[in-house]
């Protein structure tokens, strides 16, 4: 007979909220790995980007354990939260830059970059304004659609292609792959949003929340799955054509095209793929913006009522700067995100206070 005491109901609610949060982290990780892989990874090591991206998986695992440690600690950590805020906001801008590049090169080639940027930002900001619960719950609801949809559409569109696109396995060489792998470590950064408790649990007292928080394995397999999907998508990109084709694609958005449509009406498949990619990137941007606002209000409690507007304003400013300097600037800067991620992860270590 299931345990139906009020305490168990609250525990079930806490677990459900964490499940939703873990799913959100997984989607964000997959999106970040994919965006970094197509942006920086492919530019460095062409068709071996998927191999370099696999290096991000151990980093994801490590950061998950560190984030879980921070989650179950009730020690205030202003410095860590401040770093997290900066990291999450930069990730949000990176995801938006990837989204804008994708849209410009594929779905809205005649639109201006500034139009796409402001539209994407406004929709992401609206999602944030509706609250963190909404974004996480939507990611949870769409988890099968995003994963299975992308996988099914990839399989359909790649039907008949040989696996030769993966060869040579090391692409331009082991050195380039290693360099790309270093850059790809930043793809694990979204995992750190697990260090922040879900907003819908704010009403529950901390002791109860700490007592009902699931173990690290609960988050680990989900995050690794998200990262693995990002890696698989990069592999699918490599399968779509020879390495020379990837070398020819100079635009970030073009590199994100999963398999060129090869029939008069195969564009429907490609459009569906693009919409799923755009959805994942937008939700990643919204989730990380919200996490940044949450970390900001934890770091600066006086800023709490204005945390979200300040976070949105910072992202808007950064995105506008990117629009004028070129979206590729985000690509050059993105690998550096591994530094604040590593610092924030290191700050998650420390004495854990028992609930």
């Amino acid at each position: 007979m299931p345990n139906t005491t009020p305490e168990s109901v609250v525990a079930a609610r806490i677990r459900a909220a964490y499940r939703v949060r873990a799913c959100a982290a997984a989607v964000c990780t997959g999106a970040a790995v994919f965006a970094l892989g197509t942006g920086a990874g492919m530019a460095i090591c062409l068709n071996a980007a998927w191999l370099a991206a696999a290096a991000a998986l151990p980093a994801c695992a490590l950061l998950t354990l560190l984030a879980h440690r921070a989650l179950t600690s009730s020690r205030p950590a202003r410095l860590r939260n401040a770093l997290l805020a900066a990291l999450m906001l930069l990730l949000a801008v990176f995801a938006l830059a990837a989204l804008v590049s994708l849209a410009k090169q594929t779905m809205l080639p005649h639109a201006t970059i500034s139009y796409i940027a402001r539209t994407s930002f406004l929709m992401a900001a609206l999602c944030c304004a509706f609250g963190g619960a909404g974004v996480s719950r939507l990611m949870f609801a769409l988890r099968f659609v995003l994963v299975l949809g992308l996988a099914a559409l990839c399989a359909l569109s790649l039907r008949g292609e040989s696996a030769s696109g993966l060869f040579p396995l090391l692409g331009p060489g082991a050195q380039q792959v290693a360099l790309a792998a270093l850059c790809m470590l930043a793809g694990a950064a979204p995992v750190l949003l697990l260090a922040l408790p879900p907003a819908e649990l704010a009403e529950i007292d901390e002791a109860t929340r700490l007592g009902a928080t699931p173990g690290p394995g609960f988050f680990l397999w989900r995050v690794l799955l998200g990262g693995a999907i990002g890696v698989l998508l990069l592999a699918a990109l490599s399968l779509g054509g020879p390495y020379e084709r990837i070398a020819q694609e100079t635009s970030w958005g073009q590199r994100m095209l999963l398999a060129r449509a090869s029939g008069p009406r195969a564009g429907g498949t490609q459009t569906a793929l693009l919409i799923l990619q755009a959805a994942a990137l937008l939700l990643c941007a919204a989730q990380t913006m919200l996490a940044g606002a949450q970390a900001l209000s934890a770091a600066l409690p006086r800023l709490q009522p204005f945390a979200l507007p300040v976070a949105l304003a910072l992202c808007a400013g950064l995105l506008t700067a990117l629009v004028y300097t070129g979206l590729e600037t985000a690509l050059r800067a993105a690998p550096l995100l591994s530094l604040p991620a590593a610092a924030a992860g290191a700050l998650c270590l420390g004495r854990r206070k028992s609930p």
Partner: protein
Amino acid sequence: MRMGEDAITLTDDLEINLRCLRERLCMPDNQDVLLRRFRSGAFESALLAIDGMCDTREIDENILKPCMDLPRDAGADVPGGERVAYLMENAVSILPMQMKERFDDLIADALSGQCVLLCEGSAAACVMDTRGFDKRGVGRPEAERVVLGPHESFTESIRTNITLLRRIVQRETLITEFVSVGGAMKTRCALLYLRGTADEAMLARIRQRLCAIDYDFPLTTGEIGQFIEEHPGSLIPQTVHTERPDRAASFLAEGQVIVLTDGSPAALGAPSTIWHQLHTPDDTSMRWQYGTFLRLIRLLGIAVHVLLPGIYLALLRFHPELFSPMLLTSVYESGSRVPIPVYLEALLMTLAFDLIGEAGLRAPGSMGNALGIVSGLILGQSAVSADIVSPLLLIVVAASGLGGFCVPNYALSIGLRIVQLIVLTAGAAGGLYLIALVLLALLCSLCRMQSIGSPLTAPVTPPRRANPDILLRLPLRRQKARAFFAKHDS
């Protein structure tokens, strides 16, 4: 105690009480008020009622006549405070009765059709249910028709509605609480729930919200629903309205609370989820295969209603490569002849369709039937012949309109019509990309909404315990759990 308009409770003096009542009820100007003094045994009594609201024959036969037929010395030794009870025990033969002392309560009861019996020397009066106003009989539901299943619907009488529910839910734990809601003019509402099934915290929230309504005259269930919902700016309703007693009974069984309003032929179920608004009683009455099939058809219709015009516009303006060559040629040739931009064309057609729908609702009976034929044949055909609209767009808008009729919940259908216009505009402005972003934003908004503290999109997200009856209607044998918002150990 000073008598007058600010008197609060009855006194021992019948004359003073009657004078106070006359003043409060604006007699003799208010000629609907019946105030009758009579001798009942050894003491004087009086009856107060409102003409037309009460059943005068019942009053005559069961109150006046028996009281007036008492012997002249009957009740001579009864203390003043017990005289009303004496009459109730020895003369009056009406079953529902309550003793009250406050003028406000007595006047409110009299205005609702009940009869008030006062006695000399008694500071309490007896209120008896002698309602006898004319009311509509139990008919068929207008907006929630089904093929299988009952065909009764609620009426404007709260008592009849409660009776309809009690006939279905014959449980001792079915509790009816009456609440007066509103500011200057109170509306009588009834809160029905199953004790032990409905969650007490949720119940307390609903009670608190109902009592907090300070609107002067909340007349209908719809108005009350607007006061107790959490997101008044949202396009999606957060409570579910039904005019079917069987549906309301199913809500009770799931742990929801039903709010009935006197004068309104609908029940309000709260909390609810978005899935409640997409399901119909036919889904459950039929076998699971048919129920699932119909549900999927309905969802497809809703998707067509919301998305088709926007997607069509997006393809025309941004993604013509997705058209098949035959279709594109046809669209290209017809589009070349139409003088207005395609967005305006789509907007006009959609609004025209909505206008026709509204006109059909408001037009008197026989005209309403003819309206569809006139508008469809003459206006549509003429518009196409005059090259004002393209035939394909007309088909798209018509298909979308048909899909709109699949929405089972009327309030939700209006909300979805507005969403359709938003999606249409997004498609015209930014193609499939902007449609996708707008839909994501709308879905985020939907996911964060709550209904009396319960997430509107649960149990899908956030995950909660549920029967396999959300999108697909699986066999009833597999549906063993109560809804997630019921009491946890029910």
